[in-house]
């Protein structure tokens, strides 16, 4: 399978990339790792006339700590997330989630920015970014702005990103060092998107849950932040009755499609099961 013809551009700065995108218009696409876009181009579901490759822009890569936040450059690969000491120290859930994305080869090329920005509801990072309260730094022809992950996803492949804007970095507040976390993903095989998946971050004190945040993957047109379910857990000991009620609340906001991964009812239930398992594992990891 051979993609349609296109012109290739490899700018060296974000400003040049933004300039190219606004000059070339709607027929230009951004190329990051390419592992979502290139398959679409090979099957001619996408036929951009121009590709603007971001791999030549040095400052889009890397992981740093700034105050109480971790900043991850958009072109940082999943492989680099898995091997980052900074993330292992502050946000181990990111490596845990990255290991469940695709397969080793794809993780060398697949980028963090591409995963959060392309709007595929099957991607794993968006629900995790909603869970962690991340924000996205975006640069376009009119300058830069920050968009909260929780406001970013509008529909399948439809986000708050305007054409011509580039997501350059993700800013994630570092959770308390005592936090417990887990990402649980049900998939049919290695490399598959989730049938359902759940990201959970909690803190505990004296046996009581003091904060909770929950994200759900691939059980709606967008990733979901299950804020009501999470708030039902705060103040409880994560006893069975409280967890049952919170799981029911999370299941209630899902709206999965029936597809080859199973009927909608099944995928809703699996979202609940993933959330329950993630909560158990997060609780076992939480200190306090």
């Amino acid at each position, binding site marked *: 399978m*051979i993609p349609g013809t296109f012109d290739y551009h490899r700018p060296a700065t974000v400003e040049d990339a933004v300039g190219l995108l606004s000059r070339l218009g709607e027929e230009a696409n951004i190329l990051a790792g390419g592992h979502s876009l290139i398959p679409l181009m090979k099957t001619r579901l996408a036929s951009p006339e121009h590709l603007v490759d971001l791999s030549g822009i040095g400052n889009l890569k890397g992981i740093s700590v700034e105050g109480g936040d971790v900043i991850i450059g958009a072109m940082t690969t999943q492989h680099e997330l898995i091997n980052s000491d900074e993330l292992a120290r502050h946000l181990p859930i990111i490596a845990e989630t990255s290991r469940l994305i695709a397969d080793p*080869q794809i993780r060398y090329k697949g980028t963090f920015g591409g995963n959060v920005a392309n709007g595929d509801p099957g991607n794993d990072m968006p629900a995790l970014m909603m869970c962690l309260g991340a924000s996205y730094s975006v640069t376009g022809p009119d300058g830069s702005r920050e968009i909260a992950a929780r406001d970013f996803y509008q529909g399948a492949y439809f986000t708050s990103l305007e054409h011509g804007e580039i997501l350059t970095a993700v800013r994630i507040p570092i959770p308390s060092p005592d936090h417990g976390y887990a990402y649980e993903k049900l998939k049919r095989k290695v490399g598959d998107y989730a049938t359902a998946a759940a990201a959970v971050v909690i803190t505990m004190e004296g046996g009581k849950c003091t904060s909770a945040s929950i994200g759900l993957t691939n059980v709606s047109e967008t990733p979901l932040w299950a804020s009501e379910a999470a708030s039902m857990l705060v103040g409880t000991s994560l006893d069975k009755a409280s967890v049952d009620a919170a799981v029911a609340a999370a299941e209630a906001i899902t709206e999965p499609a029936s597809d080859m991964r199973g009927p909608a009812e099944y995928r809703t239930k699996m979202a609940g099961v993933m959330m329950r398992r993630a909560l158990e594992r997060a609780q076992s990891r939480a200190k306090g």
Partner: protein
Amino acid sequence: MAKSHIELTINGKKVEALVEPRTLLIHFLREQQNLTGAHIGCDTGHCGACTVEMDDMSVKSCMTFAVQANGASITTIEGMANPDGTLSALQEGFRMMHGLQCGYCTPGMILRAHRLLKENPAPTEDEIRNGIAGNLCRCTGYVNIVKAIQYAAAKINGTPFQEAAE
């Protein structure tokens, strides 16, 4: 559409070429460079038969444009033998442990295993299986592929290779 000029290193040799931007790396290697070792299996990024080494990464060359490899160093199965022409430890492992039947997945398996052992010289069986999770084999059931990689790791590390009990 304008062709792009690329310069890269393939199996230690400098190469310059003009490519259409839409040319996939696998097609460039097979059709322009006559390096037919890397295979096109599924052509959709699932099977890993097209895996090559690119700048310390295992890459599916059917999912990468040749222009993306501009400036890169590429190794294919044609560059895997020892400089004196003898089989490298991985190639020997696949031969000794019967790590192939039809052989179609083998170049991708060996290139992937090559990177895996560079990053993790003494992997457990579980780490090997996870490490080759992006490479499909429809003949062997993977048992002998895992043994082949264990054989190579032992040979590279100078430790005795003990075949696991069935």
